[in-house]
């Protein structure tokens, strides 16, 4: 049995708690949150030992692994503390707000030889993995464009009281939604080399971005577009779709479906058929020991535990790959403050202007 501790009992923390607590190979020996009323209730009704200070939990309990589901600004310190104790670490996304911090942790985890994973659960969705299988086999030929969109209802009013409304704590649509979109692109086609035209807009929030748009540039000339908006309540929950175009056709993939259009002339040996083909989640779904909200939440934790039990070093969503996502986020943050080109009104020559007052980033990101 693996002894596991859980730090952070927000939405993801509670979800992890339910899933981990039922895993046949795991014993959840301690949970930790600064909200004492919540800890008190959980202790009363579950009997699980609770802590208000994570160091105390790490000191007192004999742990094999720890799950960290706190706001991102705490990740660096907590992950480092856990790694220094030789614990395997599962950390929520986004991994680190500071890329150099993330790089250090990825290196430290490597040195310590422990299993390290970040909660990018789309990597465990059957449909996205089917897309990856097809792409790895070049079913679409040479890819030339990828578009990723993530929409959902988080901030719908000009009010915000939680850490999600603070850029300095890892709030904002870029950190909350867009990083999932970036990560799934990284997973499917690799990390972009550059970004341009980044837009971080506020809709309702005072201090953080509610929508994110950017162009991505990849090594082989492929381009990409990202659009993320967490103020869209036409969807009942976050919904992410990736569309890819290649010389042999097109693919549209989301959590439920993989739709492919393969050109007749392509002669692909991989794709099932020419023209449109639609396959559903029921075709790719894999059994999990416990279901809460989606197979992927269980599957990612199972992968983490399996890697520990089997002593596997490679991980589907390692610190290292999560840092690559943080790198793209960081590039977008910097790019959003860069110059744009004024539209020539015809009356004078076009000029290259700095972005607005230059105060946008400092206003939005608290810098």
């Amino acid at each position, binding site marked *: 049995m693996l002894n596991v501790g859980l730090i952070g009992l*927000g939405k993801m923390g509670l979800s992890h708690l339910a899933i981990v607590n039922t895993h046949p190979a795991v014993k959840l020996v301690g949970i930790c949150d600064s909200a004492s009323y919540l800890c*008190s209730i959980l202790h009363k009704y579950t009997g699980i030992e609770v802590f208000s200070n994570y160091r105390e939990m790490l000191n007192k309990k004999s742990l094999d692994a720890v799950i960290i589901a706190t706001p991102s600004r705490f990740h660096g310190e907590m992950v480092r503390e856990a790694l220094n104790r030789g614990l395997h670490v599962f950390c929520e996304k986004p991994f680190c707000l500071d890329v150099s911090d993330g790089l250090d942790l990825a290196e430290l985890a490597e040195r310590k030889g422990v299993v390290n994973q970040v909660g990018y659960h789309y990597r465990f969705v059957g449909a996205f993995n089917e897309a990856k299988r097809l792409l790895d086999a070049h079913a679409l030929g040479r890819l030339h464009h990828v578009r990723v969109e993530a929409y959902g209802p988080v901030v719908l009013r000009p009010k915000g009281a939680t850490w999600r409304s603070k850029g300095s704590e890892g709030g904002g649509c870029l950190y909350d939604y867009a990083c999932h979109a970036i990560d799934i692109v990284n997973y499917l086609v690799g990390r972009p080399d550059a970004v341009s035209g980044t837009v971080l807009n506020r809709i309702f929030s005072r201090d953080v971005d509610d929508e994110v748009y950017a162009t991505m540039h990849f090594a082989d000339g492929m381009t990409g577009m990202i659009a993320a908006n967490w103020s869209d309540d036409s969807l009942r929950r976050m919904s992410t779709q990736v569309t890819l175009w290649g010389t042999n056709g097109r693919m549209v993939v989301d959590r439920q479906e993989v739709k492919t259009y393969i050109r007749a002339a392509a002669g692909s040996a991989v794709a099932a058929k020419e023209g449109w083909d639609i396959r559903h989640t*029921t075709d790719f779904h894999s059994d999990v020991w416990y279901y809460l909200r989606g197979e992927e939440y269980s599957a990612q934790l199972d992968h983490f535990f399996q890697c520990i039990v089997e002593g596997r070093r490679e991980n589907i969503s390692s610190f290292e790959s999560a840092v690559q996502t943080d790198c793209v986020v960081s590039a977008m943050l910097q790019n959003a403050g860069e110059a744009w080109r004024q539209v020539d009104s015809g009356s004078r020559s076009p000029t290259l202007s700095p972005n607005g007052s230059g105060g946008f980033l400092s206003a939005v990101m608290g810098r």
Partner: protein
Amino acid sequence: MDRILFGDNQFFGINHMSEEKARAQAIRFADIQEIIDLLDAAYDSGIHVFMCTTHDRIAEVCAHVRLHPERYSKLEFYPCMPYAHKYANAVTEHGTIEALKRFLPAEGALSALVRGGVSVARRDVEGMARLLVDAEMKMFSGLKTPVIFLQNVVTDLLLGMGIKDAFRIFADHVRDRYKAEPGFITMNLPRLLDVLEQVGIENPIVCANMNKLGFRMCGGIDQYEKVIASRKFRPVAMSVLASGAIDPREAIEYVCSQKKIESIVFGASSKSNILNTKRLIDEYSVA
């Protein structure tokens, strides 16, 4: 319980197969009249139970039914609570405490909870749970609700965390206050049955996916068939068509071959699909 229950996923943009389909349905059923027309079709075909989420829009349906008591004299609601996205979105937006405040009618219980700090009393928690149930039940006032379900996201969250007493609290309150039978929706049937037995809820109504594909049946189809045949509970089958992945005749034949299944809930967005599915269930339920 009736043999056939009409579900409501199609009304709220929930489709486990396709986002596109879900959106098309959400657009169509944005008009409350479309919902009522379809409900009427189900009702007139002889389906007299509407098993529905406590979504805000259901309140409109309830109001309509209250206005026409004769038209719907046999109609019963099986509310499924809560509509979890309402809470999840509020927690994301406002934080746990502020979100709770928004859903609780009385300030008292919550203040006690927060003030109480480390020593939160059980009666405060339980009082609050009852208040949350009452808040969800408001929209059904004056209507028949003989069975009240706990939605799977909440059932499975509590089940996973091991907050077993919650099921007891829910069951007691539903019986005492609403003279209704408690029901539990789950994606983890075998595990839930064990826990309900442990907390002394006998012969419980439990609704879970039961389909020929084994789609979202945690523990596997074999174990599901075994517990359905051998455990003492009142099974309600949902997702019998696996969102359309199984041919309807095959799907209904399978679910009806599990003799202990008491009721089948299905959703449909056309009159013809309602009639076809009902006809199939009637056909295979004869034997």
